[in-house]
């Protein structure tokens, strides 16, 4: 029997990798993928708690998170395409018009 702690630690590791990639990577698509990875780490936490507390609410929440992630991916990739059309690059450092 695997205890809850293992799932939570795997989730923490995945989330941390996502945070690290978000901060270090400079390709905007890769950064976006790291956000998806963080969402997945949270989903894993939800499912683990749903299992160990015997409550289905966690799994229902994962369903909603997935819907939000799908919406986010559609709009976010639309933004990336628009950004690329204006700047001809995917480097995040080039998007600095709001930077002082």
């Amino acid at each position, binding site marked *: 029997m695997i205890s809850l702690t293992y799932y*939570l630690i795997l989730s923490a590791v995945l989330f*941390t990798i996502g945070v690290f990639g978000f901060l270090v990577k400079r390709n905007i698509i890769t950064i976006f993928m790291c956000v998806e990875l963080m969402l997945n780490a949270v989903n894993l936490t939800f*499912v683990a708690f749903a299992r*160990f507390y015997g409550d289905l609410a966690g*799994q229902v929440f994962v369903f909603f998170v997935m819907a939000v992630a799908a919406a986010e991916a559609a709009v976010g990739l639309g933004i990336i395409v628009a950004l690329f059309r204006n700047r001809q690059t995917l480097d995040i450092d080039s998007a600095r018009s709001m930077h002082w």
Partner: protein
Amino acid sequence: METLIFIILGTIAAGGAVSILVQRHPIYSALSLILTFIALAGIYIQMHAEFIAVMQIVIYTGAIMVLFVFVIMLLNAREEPAPRQALRFINYLGLPLSILLAVQVSFVVFRAFAGYGISLSPSLANSTGNTAAIGKELYTRYLLPFEVTSILLLVAIIGAIVMAKKEL
């Protein structure tokens, strides 16, 4: 046996996640992320969350990642250039800080949930993950959030169309 499968799947998931960072070309990062998602789906099946596992495959690897790969190919994304000299310290500073964050979170988890390890409620041990039960919850107790989600998806459709317009 159960623990062994979890360790294998967890290693694949973490390895795929690390591979996202290591790969320089976005298409390889996307494929690594798909590997992570599929490994997570396996873990969900192990936790008797079959519905979520199938949704993970269908939505994440089937829809979202196809969209990512489509955009990568549409924009002809290239390999990431080497970081500028002034920014190189971020890598060296970020790695220890990330490891510190992971250790910190793991420590809190150990402290807070050390006693909860085995408290699996027996009544739901077999029924959780039952797709019918989730559907019932979704259409009774969570009906309003479910309907709001449909509005969110509608807004996302409109947003994606607006973003893809020629003149922005």
